[in-house]
């Protein structure tokens, strides 16, 4: 994983759309991402998660963390900014930057230490950390569609591209 955070990416950009019928579909989607990371990529991913309050960003992350073998709860990181999960071979860091005033705050948190080949970073409200976050392998946008959700995932790196190839309906 490249920690040079300002390097532009030249990998092919692809995009896929999924319809998530309910909460359990969101969890299943997170699960699928975990399976691809484990079985196909064998490399951690950086995911930027966009979506309004209540669209299921934390729910998707829960599916991912549990897909990598976490047995306990996945709590909202809103008040702690980051919730770490040490799952043996893999680490997952679940960020919620909603309450971050200035991206520079991330330096005080030691943000650079969180990115690495075996670590997976799921970042909610990434625009609040602009300039100090590692580049995303994929960006996920979740939108309201009545009570359902429309999820759009786009890739920005080779790893992200491979991840998308592994994702089927």
């Amino acid at each position, binding site marked *: 994983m490249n920690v040079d955070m300002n390097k532009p990416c030249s990998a092919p950009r692809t995009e896929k759309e999924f319809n998530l019928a309910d909460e359990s579909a969101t969890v299943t989607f997170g699960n699928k991402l975990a399976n691809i990371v484990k079985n196909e990529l064998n490399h951690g991913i950086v995911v930027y998660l966009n979506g*309004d309050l209540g669209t299921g960003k934390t729910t998707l992350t829960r599916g991912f963390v549990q897909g990598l073998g976490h047995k306990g*709860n996945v*709590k*909202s990181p809103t008040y702690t900014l980051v919730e770490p999960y040490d799952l043996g071979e893999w680490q997952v860091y679940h960020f919620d930057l909603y309450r971050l005033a200035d991206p520079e705050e991330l330096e005080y948190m030691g943000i650079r230490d969180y990115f690495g080949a075996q670590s997976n970073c799921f970042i909610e409200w990434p625009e609040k950390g602009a300039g100090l976050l590692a580049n995303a392998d994929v960006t996920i946008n979740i939108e309201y569609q*009545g009570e359902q959700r429309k999820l759009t995932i786009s890739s920005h790196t080779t790893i992200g591209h491979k991840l998308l190839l592994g994702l089927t309906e």
Partner: protein
Amino acid sequence: MRILGIETSCDETGIAIYDEKEGILAHRLYSQIAVHADYGGVVPELASRDHVRKTIPLIKEVLADAKLTAKDLDGVAYTAGPGLVGALLVGCSIGRSLAYGWNLPAVPVHHMEGHLLAPMLEDDVPDFPFVALLVSGGHTMLVRVDGIGQYELLGESVDDAAGEAFDKTAKLLGLDYPGGPALAKMAETGKKGRFKFPRPMTDRPGLDFSFSGLKTFAANTIHKEEMDKQTHADVAYAFQEAVVDTLAIKCKRALLQCELKRLVIAGGVSANTELRAKLEQITAKLGGKVYYPRPEFCTDNGAMIAYAGMQRLKAGVFADLSFKATPRWPLDTLAAI
């Protein structure tokens, strides 16, 4: 014996002096809400810097309020966790250093133990054992309390804390941070029965909570409806009703499971009037009673830290010359005294 209490775990700087015989002699609180309001939440680094600015002046003020000097103190207690690490470090380093300089014992305190014991600052004190509901922006948990340091976690939120769900739903309703109390105010003009929100995890056994789904339910409702002023109030009403009912159902279940009749509520959300009324009702039906601290001791404060520190000081439990801030610190790992 008298002890100074220092609380800096999040966005309030709280300082107090507690006297074993006379109770709280003085307490002061500086809230950073205004500092953070522009950002819609607490900002860790700003919080730490603000604690640095406020802690020492507040200590001087409480000493002056109580007409005491450092020579009249027998110990210094400070919140050592859980909380934001930068914010905690301010209180820990100031507390430990003052104790060293004044040649007094230093007592690290668990923030949630402080909340649990806050009702002990009132005239009507619950006897052990009791069930405690700790409910705030960062925590929602049910604890069985058999004595100081004897805590059994009965259940907790698996996702969002109740206070967080309040603040986020308030935001969805267009209210400013921290929106919990404003949402409660808005709910006062809401109509009962127009919206029916779920009561998460009440249909299955166990004492865990989940509040993330209620926030989503509110979001879905807001997206579906024409949101005029009355509808805002009706959504606020239905949301608050669901949170209060859910907390009440689990409290009742915990009391029955533990075969206890005394319920303590603490933490910021315990100041909610509807919640207090509902819990009064369910405990009365069980022939029991609910205990809570005065509103200013429901949220973070120095008094509860001074009180909890005094209990450990009396038992001879102090820190060595080092200090450590522990951002994640499960309550049930504390030693009994």
